[in-house]
């Protein structure tokens, strides 16, 4: 046998089972299907290969990628090269978690259920809000779900979005808005920060803080304005900023959403990540997706179940709060392991390290002739935007890649540069040198 085969049937098995069915061949299994739709040829896909050959092929393909242990990554824009501790995936990757389905039968699924309950709890600890779910697909879909929650909660249609929100999120809002019936309205910014808006009859104001440029917004003022106008204040946050920055709860946001990749998940070229969403108790019955709750069994022993399912598609069908079914549970479990690994002290140290390295990098890079901050004099967290006098940002990015450095993405003629705790002073100094060569 030369291809992978996971069906354990021996020829005797097949014969015996066909006999039991009174059939003479496997073709008979499809006898009742109209002939015109039956495929009369083999699939035009190469025939199967052994594990050995398959891995050789995949190693070859992966060898045509330059990864973040090879390139030094200062790339940002919504995904970051934070350190993933060994314990995270040696635990989240356990096959009992990995090979199970959504916990429909709680008696056989307490492991996943409790892990999700603890994930929800840690998200509440982190954000200072009261309600979390068991994950959404990713940061972009979390923003979309937050907006539809806000529209349902307020009964209003209009959606106000700061133009300093990651453009990918705005694009997603445009796409999903076409179905839901709204067109996101952009809130202007000055000097890299959203203006504090005069909020009209809108469902929500969406503010990313730190924003797409890494800049700290006037979040308190913006959220206050939104809530004063009866709109939901939606905070798009960076989970790893919350050791050092005031959390959504303290900033008076109603709904907080985030890209959860930074919580112990690998970069993996954009996924699987997880969408984090947290809100106040007022909106618990409008939350999308799975929520795990604690209860007791018939003997009074505590245990966990999926709860408030009346919100969900399998019960509510077209009236459900969302269509999400499969989510990113395993990533949420990894996020929980990671958050517990960090602990409160680690979260603070991590945030301080990112901020300090970013500040140092900004200083070193702007010391290079022809390189400036795109937005001077505004505070930022772990990421900032550079502008160049003599070169286009895309050209700088590509030439830095050839020198072994990942930066970017490019946004509004500026080049984003991010620092995680993984970046050393040495690497930052080397980057500055490389930038000097590239822009010269």
């Amino acid at each position, binding site marked *: 046998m030369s291809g992978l085969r996971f069906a354990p049937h021996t020829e005797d098995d097949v014969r015996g089972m066909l006999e039991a069915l009174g059939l003479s061949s496997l073709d008979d299994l*499809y006898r009742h299907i109209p002939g015109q739709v039956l495929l009369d040829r083999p699939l035009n896909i190469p025939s199967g290969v052994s594990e050995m050959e398959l891995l050789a092929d995949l190693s070859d393909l992966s060898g045509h*990628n330059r990864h973040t242990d090879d390139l030094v990554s200062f790339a940002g824009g919504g995904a970051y090269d934070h350190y993933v501790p060994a314990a995270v995936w040696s635990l989240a990757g356990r096959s009992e978690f990995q090979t199970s389905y959504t916990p429909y039968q709680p008696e056989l699924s307490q*492991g996943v259920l409790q892990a999700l309950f603890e994930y929800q709890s840690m998200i509440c600890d982190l954000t200072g809000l009261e309600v*979390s779910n068991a994950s959404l697909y990713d940061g972009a879909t979390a923003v979309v779900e937050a907006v539809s929650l806000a529209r349902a909660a307020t009964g209003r249609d209009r959606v106000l979005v700061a133009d300093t929100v990651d453009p990918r999120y705005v694009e997603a809002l445009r796409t999903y808005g076409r179905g839901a019936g709204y067109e996101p309205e952009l809130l202007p910014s000055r000097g890299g920060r959203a203006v504090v808006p005069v909020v009209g009859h809108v469902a929500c104001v969406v503010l990313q803080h730190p924003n797409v440029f890494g800049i*700290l917004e006037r979040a308190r003022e913006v959220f206050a304005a939104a809530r004063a106008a009866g709109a939901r204040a939606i905070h798009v946050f960076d989970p790893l900023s919350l050791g050092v920055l005031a959390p959504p709860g303290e900033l008076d946001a109603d709904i907080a959403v985030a890209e959860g990749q930074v919580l112990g998940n690998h*970069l993996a070229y954009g996924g699987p990540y997880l969408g984090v969403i947290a809100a106040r108790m007022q909106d618990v019955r409008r939350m999308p997706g799975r929520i795990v709750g604690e209860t007791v069994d018939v003997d009074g022993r505590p245990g966990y179940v999926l709860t408030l399912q009346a919100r969900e598609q399998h019960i509510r069908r077209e009236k459900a709060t969302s269509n999400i079914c499969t989510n990113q549970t395993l990533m949420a479990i990894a996020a929980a392991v990671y958050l517990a690994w*960090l602990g409160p002290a680690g979260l603070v140290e991590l945030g301080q390290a990112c901020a300090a390295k970013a*500040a140092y990098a900004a200083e070193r890079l702007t010391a290079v002739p022809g390189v400036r901050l795109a937005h001077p004099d505004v505070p930022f967290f772990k990421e900032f935007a550079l502008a160049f006098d003599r070169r286009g940002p895309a050209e700088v990015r590509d030439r830095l*890649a050839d020198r072994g450095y990942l930066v970017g993405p490019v946004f509004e003629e500026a080049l984003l540069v991010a620092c995680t705790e993984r970046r050393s002073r040495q690497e930052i100094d080397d980057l500055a040198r490389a930038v000097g060569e590239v822009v010269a």
Partner: protein
Amino acid sequence: MTEPVGAPVRVGDPEAFPRTLRNLARPGRRASAFPPLDVPPTELPSDQRRERAAALPEVSERDLVRHYTRLAQRNYGVDTGFYPLGSCSMKYNPKVAETAASLPGFQRLHPHQPEHTVQGVLELLWRLERALCEVTGMARATFQPAAGASGELTGLLIMRAFHSRNGDPRRRIVIPDSAHGTNPASVRMAGYEVATVPSDARGLVDLSALEKLVEEDVAGLMITNPNTLGLFEEDILEIARTIHGAGGLLYYDGANLNAILGRVRPGDMGFDIVHMNTHKTFATPHGGGGPGAGPVAVAERLAPFLPSPVVERREDGTFGWDRDRPESIGRIHGFHGNVGVLVRAYAYVFGNGGDGLREVGERAVLNARYLAERVRSAFPLAHPDGPAMHEFVSTAKPLRPHGVRAMDVAKRLIDLGYYPSTVYFPLVVEEALMVEPTETESKETLDAFAEAMLRVAREAEEEPDLLREAPVTTPIRRLDEALAARSLKICW
């Protein structure tokens, strides 16, 4: 003698279940360590700083490891045993796919890397797109949807874009009454109304009812085939003619694709849009709820509307993202979809190969039909005449007189060592038991499970309490879901 599923509670053991991490925590304890700061510290603006530290649990790495090791042991997966959860294709997940996904060259790529640094993964996606189009009989595909439901919405937004480009917006999407909950939910999110077509006595779409439903304002039809009753929609060409005749489009919900791999292609049945659930058909692990991947493939004429960007192969043989797609519906995912999952799907598709995929489908159907035959005496098929494809739907109605419900049957199966079948779905079948064995189970496993089901049916008559009180062998027993919703403890 029967013993509990899951790891032990340990009396007198401070780590005994169900201690949460919060209970294990002690002030000052920690697992993380970071290098000393090698640059000057910074001060963030005081009005922006966090006041009170986040109340995360303070635990050691050893606490973490024991806690999650025990939680894992309290969880039943395909690696633990038979998992005949209907509509979920819980087949064996090959270990080689895990090795592939963990190669640094796939696991450690930043989504914003310049194209010339990610040629390998782009080629992988391009090859996978070709293969999935061949399996489904479609022209192009997108990998953005993170799961089936996301694929559904993507497909419906493509329909919407198609119709409005043709200047005739339409209002309704027809779905069968046996449809999965995500179908109507997606229809609503796409701004359409649901028009439900009933199943007929055969358990198939009622053609005459469909005729009546279909008017100008029908944007399209959304259906699985085999349908959620495990039956093949034999009138599919008729159905396609009707919908297309009325100017509508056909959407294929790929949850049941496993049944027809290499035998029937949605495109050849007249479908215009198809989503696949890699976490079902292509054996990517479901992770206790996710991640999945829901690639959407479409016919040529719909390709312009796919989410942007799509992978392309350039004349010079290099690969890149085509972003110049004016008619695209836009962005469904923050980046390129669940690439890590797609690497596993690639391993499965090319490891099995075209010949292997056909065998997968054949054996999935063989197993389901064999098992249906073995249990139908005790659990009659909802639709006895239609031959089961990859799964079958039985009913526990005969047990009602004994005061036993389908859920009781499920719970008793737990005591006998199995993950139960899907229950109460599809909604159109009373006391539904939806059983999908998948192709990776052996005849011995099927025979033993059949024995167990027959035993449960006997017990329902002779000792119904065995069912009503089940499970008794698990670390926790039936949980009070009403209390959970009432008292609502969703955070420690």
